[in-house]
């Protein structure tokens, strides 16, 4: 057995860095803070790589399967004998993979931010928050039990909140951060309820016990029914709700586009590569239960994923803010991953979808981070987010241009770039399981290629906009991460995921299914072609199209009015029709009742003052009648 106990330092180091930068950051020079943060992350990146290497290539397999290794664990909070929150490190293929993803992207973003955020007020705060995020995300993926995951789940939520609202003086940023937090919080409520139901029925939080295919949790979980579904299904649906929120699936997707108010590196790190895939990771983590004990819940996952991917892709085609396009693209891609999980089975080749999902998660992290960082470089150069204000930038930003193109090709699924491989596996998995979903994903693949190249062409080609000052290429701190990630996007497709990350830890064989791959590439190319026609040069086609499909376009452009719907629910229903009436009720009914007691007392006091009339004879009258009344009472009435 290899000693992995050092892995506890992987999340701890960023935490220490957070404390250092958070408490003493404002006393340090900004540059030093940045370097400290970046350095710390570099260190854990190395550690992660070492761990991944050791885990995949040197650790022993049992039965040909990668083992789940608890590298360290201690009881953080004891609820009952069996239920306790542990904080620890669980190493298994997906967590190790996620380690690599997170540290890589995070490291790149750190480096990138050194340039991007230079001179910003709150530079050290930014790095502190980044460290906090890294800590939380790492804690999340390394969680040994579902409650630990929930803890870090919440923490990434708050880091995301802090980072979206980094420009706290900007009202839109404040709104966006609030929205992100509350929407995900609402989803997390489901997660928590899911945990409660799950733990009540299984009496454990522990992942290994929970997900043991032979374990009691899975075996007995299907039994007790409630409203037609087994308790386990209920709990898994609730748990998935958390994933829906964090991964911005429909209908909780609305926070993600707004979250682009945060600094672009943040979008790259959190809202593209790492945090938003936490939902996928969650489902993957609980996968045996979904697959073996709650197939209904797994279907929900598949449909939610498919719908989200289509829905977001359509919206992405109409947006003009490049970060929003990317955001919807992210939703769409995560939808792919969810779908892949949803259509997957457990074990062996059945688990193709699972593997594909993880694979896509991995590649997506690379190319989406690349896209965002590229977008950051563009924005850095142009000082605008809108495609309409850009054009012909390829001359000014050569490196960005090339890397961006690579990323676009990758996401469009053009071989031999990584996106091709991962997406292809997903399509294959869907094909074998559910033809309808497969068809949807085919369409989405085309849409993806279209909107990405719409973006690409309108930014780098198209009309040559006159800029108020000449755009110039970003500094090396920003371009180097771009290049590294571009390389990553190219090469990661060749990683044999079926040998590393599988649903049951065992290796299985999978090969490229040309019957699926070729049409998908063609569809991708078709999308690119249409985009080329429409956006390569200035053309009236898009406007015409928009005019033709006026209503659909308008609906899509307005994101199908989901924001308005949410606004209606929150502002109108909750605030106007619940909270304010409650407050009113409290003041005017409950409190008024209490006050009424006092008022009535005083009123009675006023009314009966006549007894004390100052008239001697009235006093005597009361005296005599009192005596007589009492006598009558006790002689005749109440003997």
């Amino acid at each position: 057995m290899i000693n992995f106990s050092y892995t506890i330092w992987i999340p701890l180091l960023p935490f220490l860095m957070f404390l250092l930068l958070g408490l003493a950051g404002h006393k340090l020079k900004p540059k030093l803070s940045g370097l400290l943060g970046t350095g710390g992350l570099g260190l854990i990146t190395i550690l992660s790589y070492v761990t991944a290497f050791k885990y995949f290539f040197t650790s022993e397999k049992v039965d040909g399967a990668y083992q789940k290794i608890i590298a360290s664990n201690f009881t953080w909070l004891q609820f009952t004998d069996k239920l306790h929150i542990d904080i620890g490190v669980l190493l298994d293929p997906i967590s190790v993979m996620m380690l690599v993803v997170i540290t890589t992207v995070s490291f790149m973003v750190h480096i990138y931010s050194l340039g991007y955020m230079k001179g910003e007020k709150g530079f050290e705060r930014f790095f502190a928050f980044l460290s906090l995020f890294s800590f939380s995300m790492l804690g999340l993926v390394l969680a040994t039990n579902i409650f630990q995951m929930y803890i870090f789940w919440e923490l990434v939520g708050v880091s995301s909140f802090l980072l979206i609202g980094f420009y706290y003086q900007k009202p839109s940023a404040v709104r966006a951060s609030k929205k992100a937090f509350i929407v995900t919080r609402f989803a997390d409520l489901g997660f928590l309820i899911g945990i409660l139901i799950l733990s009540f029925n299984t009496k454990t939080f522990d992942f290994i016990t929970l997900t043991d295919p032979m374990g009691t949790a899975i075996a007995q979980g299907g039994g007790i029914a409630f409203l037609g579904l087994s308790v386990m299904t209920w709990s898994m649906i609730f748990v998935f709700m958390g994933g829906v929120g964090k991964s911005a699936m429909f209908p909780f997707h609305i926070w993600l586009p707004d979250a682009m108010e945060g600094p672009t590196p943040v979008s790259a790190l959190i809202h593209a590569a790492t945090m938003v895939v936490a939902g996928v990771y969650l489902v993957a983590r609980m996968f045996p239960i979904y697959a073996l004990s709650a197939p209904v819940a797994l279907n929900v996952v598949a449909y939610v994923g498919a719908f989200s991917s289509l829905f977001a892709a359509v919206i992405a085609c109409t947006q003009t803010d490049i970060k929003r396009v990317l955001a919807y693209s992210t939703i769409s891609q995560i939808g792919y991953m969810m779908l892949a999980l949803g259509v997957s089975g457990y074990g062996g080749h059945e688990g193709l979808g699972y593997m594909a999902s993880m694979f896509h998660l991995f590649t997506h992290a690379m190319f989406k981070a690349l896209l965002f960082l590229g977008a950051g470089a563009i924005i850095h150069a142009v000082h605008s987010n809108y495609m309409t204000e850009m054009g012909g930038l390829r001359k000014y930003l050569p490196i960005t241009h090339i890397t961006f193109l690579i990323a676009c090709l990758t996401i469009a699924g053009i071989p031999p770039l990584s996106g091709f491989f991962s997406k292809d596996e997903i399509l294959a998995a869907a094909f074998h399981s559910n033809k309808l979903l497969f068809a949807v994903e085919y369409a989405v693949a085309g849409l993806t290629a279209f909107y990405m190249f719409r973006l690409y062409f309108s930014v780098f080609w198209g009309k040559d906009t006159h800029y108020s000052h000449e755009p110039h290429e970003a500094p090396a701190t920003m371009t180097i991460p771009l290049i590294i990630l571009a390389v990553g996007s190219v090469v990661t497709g060749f990683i044999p995921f079926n040998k590393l990350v599988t649903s049951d830890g065992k290796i299985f064989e999978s090969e490229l299914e040309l019957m699926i791959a070729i049409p998908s590439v063609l569809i991708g190319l078709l999308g690119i072609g249409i985009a080329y026609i429409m956006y390569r040069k200035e053309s009236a086609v898009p406007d015409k199209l928009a005019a033709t499909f006026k209503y659909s376009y308008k609906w899509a452009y307005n994101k199908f009015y989901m924001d308005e719907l949410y606004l209606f629910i929150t502002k109108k229903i909750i605030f106007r029709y619940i909270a304010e009436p409650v407050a009113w009720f409290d003041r005017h009914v409950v409190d008024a009742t209490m006050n009424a007691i006092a008022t009535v007392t005083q009123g009675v006091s006023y009314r009966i003052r006549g007894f004390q009339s100052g008239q001697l004879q009235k006093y005597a009258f009361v005296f005599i009648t009192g005596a007589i009344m009492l006598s009558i009472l006790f002689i005749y009435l109440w003997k």
Partner: protein
Amino acid sequence: MSLGTFLIMRHELLLIAAALIVLIAEIFWNPDKKSSISLFSIILFGVITIIGFLPSPAGPLFGGMYVSSGTRLLMKNILNIGALIVFIQSVTWLKKEENSEKISEYFLLLISTLVGMNFMISAGHFLIFYIGIELATIPIAALAAYDRYKNKSAEAGIKLILTSALSSGVMLYGLSMIYGTTGTMYFSEVASLFGNTSLQILGFIFFFAGMAFKISIVPFHLWTADVYEGSPVNITSYLSVISKGAAIFILMIILFKVFPIIMGTWQKTIFVTSVLTMTIGNLFAIRQQNLKRFLAFSSISQAGYILLGLIGGNQLGMASVMYYILVYIFSNLGAFGVVTAISNATGKENIDDYNGLYQTNPKLSLIMTLALFSLAGIPPVAGFFGKFFLFTAAAQQGFYLLVLIAVLNTIISLFYYLLVVKAMFISKNENPIGSFRSDFSTRFAFGICVAGIVVTGFASVIFEAIKNLSFGV
């Protein structure tokens, strides 16, 4: 009369002697130093108070007409303490020019009422009881009308004497029925001969009405507020604590000793009247502006609480009543002391006048607060303990509903006590009562009251001593 008789009756005899000495001394006193007669009287009385605490033989005298026992001695001592405080508080008032003519009379009358109370408490026969209660009332009426130049004082006097005459008439009618149905007026004999017939209950209720008048139990209380307001403050405080205390003591003794047979009836009576008393007293107190009137109603509601101690007819109840009276003496006299001091200094008696008092007279305000909190039953002052024991006594016999009503009433009472506190500490006032320094006697009285309020609660010895002397039905 043997020496033993003298010893047993020493409370009364000494008081009578003191009254006469004061009366005679006045004749020989230097007219220029008239006011020093009060010092003389107080010292005299102080000595008597102390003598009262000396151990003494007990037993019946005059064929059972006069009964002395540890309990009754204790009651007398409690009253003595209260009276002493009242005397000391009176000094400033007596120094006033319009009162200088009648200092010795003041002491004579007060002491004679105290004699009456002592006889009343020691009664073993309704005749002594009756004469005692009249002796305790008639001079008080004169004292209530003592401020001859004030309309209110005269009004207070007439209201007191006439209503008390009526009440003693009613009470006597009741007593006559008791006599008619038992053939005796000796407590011990009535106790064994009494029954539960209608006429006896009628007699009892009428008797109770007469007693209730003295304690100011609703609906026999209506004289209280007017008389308290009109009387000189010292008399008011005397009425509210000493008179009331004595009446409660003897009512308790009579209920326990004479009417144990109809315990069910008198428990019901007390239940009804105590609920009425607490509630009505509180409801009226809420809206009072004049502090004396305010304290009058407060003392009515206090009487309601005290009845809770009686209702159980148990030893604990008796102890708690005596204890509470002791506490009540300190608390109420503390409150009245402040009213007296301010009334003497400025003539102001309204709550509004007290606005901002804390800024100018912090000590007086604190004493007032302490006293009011004690009346309201707020820990850690003695009133809390007193009330707690009263409620415990009632609860012991299962009168939980009554206790609940009582504690809810304490909330109302807390409200109006806090109004005074609010006036003193919170309300703003452009022209608060100017700061003044009370003379020695007032401060001395305050010292006793404050010490009493603070110590009586914590020192469990006092309660235990009382408890050991008390008895139940």
